[in-house]
């Protein structure tokens, strides 16, 4: 070992004199420079490289920092990113001098928010300066520091001798959009906890900050409710093996919090609720065939007070279980045929003077539901139909645009009415096709619609959606990554970052980095990773 230590610099010097290593070295640096994902807003790097040794390098709280060892978010992140940078224990045995001795993490605001939750208003900006002997990461709060730690870990690269290097770098970074989400659907197929956690991990690697949990739908109700246990008891695929217990949900929320990710649950009504009906009697509308009930059920029955009593109790629970300020209330794809068939509903329509316009009945339901949820002091998100049908919405409502046709027009209308909006229409990742479809997702410009500057400001972000009809634990992760990474960069980096060729090179390396970190991210095209996926 001693000889190796002594001799290594000598071999290196000789090699440099001969020129071949030098060439290789420069190429490596260039490669490294382009492998950040998503690319920071401001970024300057020089060819000067520093070595990092796992034996002596440390991630520490800066003296001036308002956060200290009691900040569990940062303590956990330090350990996580140390492991990402230096790999497994085996490779940590390498011993050499460290040029860079530490990364100081400096939280500048009085409240580092270590015990809170990230929100729509969270400041995720950070500044990172890598220079001898210390690197400094400056952020207003712990959330910005998490983003900076991810960037720092992406700057470190291994040379051909296995040593870790980082170049002299200055970064000033902040997200272009505040809401950068991933939607997973745990109803069409149950997703084991492990899969959800792994994808939260991958989300953090891509600076996503919202997990939109489409937790229940027609097919199954895996959310275990404390108030209404029959919902999952009778509505899940299996009452014990295919459910999320309260402690599972808690674990997801905490795991996400540790990574600066908000968890927004979606309880979609009045449509998409078939599984709800298994556990709650009389919640759904009985459909009729001629003059008698056909035995099938439609959307939530909007004419019974019991439906609203149930929703009041249910959302009271949801508002305490999920800490985020927003709940997604769905409101999409309501099928009117069952309502139309039901004589009681027909009578109600006449009483209310709705004529034959069933979207008025839908609005009637949604309006009452929104009032119920507003009483829990939560904000809400809804799918675009709710806005389209003219339901009166609270000012802070977020409208999610998902329909691919007339997307620009919809954005124009929603923002024209003064509502904030997020875009998911171009990013339905469950639609697969042969080839490099990530490029299509990458080329989307969310603000490319006619409207004033004030309107554009109302677009607060977007979501990549992986609906579950054809997706479960077997194929979810490789189907999502690195295709969702394209969306991640679009939502984080500057508008001017649009070079697909440059993105390809960085993304190919970023996917190898995810593979190295244990995420089975599929290949972009022909090629290889130094460390291939070893799971299976």
């Amino acid at each position, binding site marked *: 070992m001693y000889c190796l230590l002594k001799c290594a610099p000598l071999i290196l010097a000789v090699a440099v004199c001969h020129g071949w290593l030098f060439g290789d070295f420069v190429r490596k640096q260039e490669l490294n420079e382009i492998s950040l994902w998503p690319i920071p807003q401001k970024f300057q790097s020089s060819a000067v490289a520093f070595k990092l040794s796992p034996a002596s390098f440390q991630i520490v709280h800066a003296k001036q920092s308002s956060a200290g060892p009691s900040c569990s978010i940062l303590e956990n992140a330090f350990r996580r990113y140390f492991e990402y940078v230096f790999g497994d224990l085996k490779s940590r045995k390498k011993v050499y001098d460290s040029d860079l001795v530490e990364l100081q993490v400096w939280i500048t605001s009085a409240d580092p928010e270590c015990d809170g939750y990230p929100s729509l208003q969270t400041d995720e900006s950070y500044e990172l300066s890598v220079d001898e002997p210390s690197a400094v990461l400056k952020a207003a709060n712990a959330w910005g520091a998490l983003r900076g730690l991810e960037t720092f870990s992406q700057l470190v690269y291994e040379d051909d001798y296995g040593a870790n290097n980082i170049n002299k770098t200055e970064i000033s970074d902040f997200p272009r959009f505040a809401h950068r989400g991933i939607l997973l659907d745990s109803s069409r197929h149950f997703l084991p906890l492990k899969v959800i956690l792994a994808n939260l991990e991958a989300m953090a690697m891509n600076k996503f900050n919202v997990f939109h949990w489409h937790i229940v739908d027609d097919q199954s109700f895996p959310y275990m409710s404390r108030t209404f246990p029959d919902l999952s008891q009778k509505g899940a*695929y299996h009452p014990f*093996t295919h459910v999320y217990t309260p402690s599972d949900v808690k674990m997801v929320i905490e795991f996400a919090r540790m990574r600066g990710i908000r968890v927004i649950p979606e309880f979609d009504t009045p449509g998409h609720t078939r599984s709800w009906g298994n556990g709650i009697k009389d919640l759904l509308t009985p459909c009729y065939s001629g003059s008698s009930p056909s035995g099938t059920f439609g959307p939530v029955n909007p004419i019974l007070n019991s439906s609203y009593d149930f929703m009041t109790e249910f959302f009271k629970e949801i508002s305490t279980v999920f800490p985020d300020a927003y709940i997604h209330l769905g409101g999409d794809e309501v099928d009117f045929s069952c309502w139309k068939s039901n004589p009681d509903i027909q009578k109600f329509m006449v009483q209310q003077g709705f004529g034959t316009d069933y979207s008025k009945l839908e609005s009637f339901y949604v309006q009452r539901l929104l009032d119920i949820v507003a009483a829990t002091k939560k904000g809400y998100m809804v799918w675009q139909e709710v806005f389209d049908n003219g339901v009166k919405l609270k000012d802070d409502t977020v409208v999610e645009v998902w329909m691919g046709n007339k997307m620009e027009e919809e954005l124009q209308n929603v923002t024209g009415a003064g509502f904030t909006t997020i875009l998911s229409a171009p990013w339905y990742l*469950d639609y697969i*096709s042969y080839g490099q479809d990530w490029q299509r997702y990458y080329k989307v410009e969310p603000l490319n619609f006619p409207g004033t500057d004030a309107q554009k400001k109302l677009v607060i972000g977007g979501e990549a959606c992986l609906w579950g009809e*054809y997706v479960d*634990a077997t194929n979810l992760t490789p189907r999502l990554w690195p295709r969702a990474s394209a969306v991640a960069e679009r939502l984080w980096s500057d508008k001017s970052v649009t070079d697909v060729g440059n993105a390809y090179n960085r993304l190919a390396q970023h996917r190898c980095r995810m593979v190295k970190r244990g995420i*089975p991210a599929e290949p972009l095209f*022909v*090629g290889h990773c130094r460390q291939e996926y070893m*799971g299976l």
Partner: protein
Amino acid sequence: TIFSAPVRACLLLVVVSVWVQQVDGVWPLPQQLDQSADRNSLSPQRFSFTYGRDSAAQTGCSVLDAAFKRYFSIIFPDFTKGSVSVKTRGCDGYPDEDSDESYNLSVSEGQAVLRSVTVWGALRGLESFSQLVYQDDYGSYFINKTEIVDFPRFAFRGLLLDTSRHYLPLHAILKTLDAMAYSKFNVFHWHIVDDPSFPYQSRTFPDLSNKGAFHPFTHVYTQSDVMRVIEHARMRGIRVIPEFDSPGHTQSWGKGQPNLLTPCYKGDVPSGSFGPVDPTVDTTYKFMESLLKEVKFVFPDSYVHLGGDEVSFACWQSNPNVRTFMEKMGFGKDFTKLESFYMERTSIVWQDVFDYHERIPQDTVLEIWKGETYQAELSRMTKAGHRVLLSAPWYINHISYGQDWRNSYAVQPQNFSGVWSKQKKLVIGGEVAMWGEYVDATNLNPRLWPRACAAAERLWSDEEKTLNADLAFPRLEKFRCELLRRGIQAEPLFVGHCKHEYDGL
């Protein structure tokens, strides 16, 4: 809660009786299957596989001893005799194109009897047997009274993996072989090298992988890796047919073998890039002879795939030496010459060779890969008297939204205009191809399974009984859950769930 208990019990009974209806769910569907609702319970403590008294194979038969062990733990995963009778020996051999894979399985009270001519047939029967066993909600094992007479419709039921566009770690290949056996595939077509990389570590020409692999140590198949693949396959009755594709698709070969590839010209000067193998120099043929001699030695199967697809003529045409050579020699000698190195072997080539060359040895097997006109091609090739493999409709690397397995399932390999039934008989089978442009160890398995199962049934079962995809759907859905239970990462067909969900990532 006092009242709910009996209600629940009632429900279970209903479930059980529905379940009994469904146990004919063998995939691919056996040729003849008679089943009654009479069921026998199986006790893992008392059940065992034994060799029949009249069986030619007895204890010591490596293939079956290993298979008994394998299928016992597949049937009873929570633990670690029926009777097997094999007419001929052959436990230490390899399956080949003439292997008889037929078997008869009779399950009656107290015992089950599996009869087959060869050990390979016994393997197929064991697979069917394992799929007949089911568990009730209390964990007891059952099998219904069943009579099966079964044999494959086509002798060649292959699956192609491409280890050049992306390197596939050994365990990914072995896992694929496991899953192949579950669907009764019997040929692993190993597209081992191609333009992007040369992972086969040659004993004769080590530089091919030293310089042509993605990485000379971590991204190669050593000789012992190859042996392991061949033995793992043999144990499952699967042939391993390697493909060393030339003269095109050989960019990676050029790195380790100087002067093998044709230098392309730009005007009068070499452009610095290279094209297909240079057919004009003797060194090429000497090299190919030595390499193929090695391949013949390493891979025991009597077939070898010589490729021959998508040769770009632009580079050849640009090169003055090649132009002169072509005038001198005429066209199309290259393949005949290549094949001459394989005197005792049967070669498979891609359809291009047939399309562009006049003279091809009669025993060469042609593989159809071009999608648009495969029926016409089937017609032409069989008319010319060649044996044919169909893979065009089964390029399952092409993915799309939804249930594309139905397209694979709807394929009718013998539905083409041909004058003689002899022509139809020349279709010896087909292959599912998983090309590697967008596939590596991260996504290979869910992309293969259960999509490849559709072709597996088309190639094994009676077409008349299996043309309705809607009828196949519940059986395939159940089979994919069975694959999950056996640890194969098979993706869902549509919404729903399995009792045992995939437990990995």
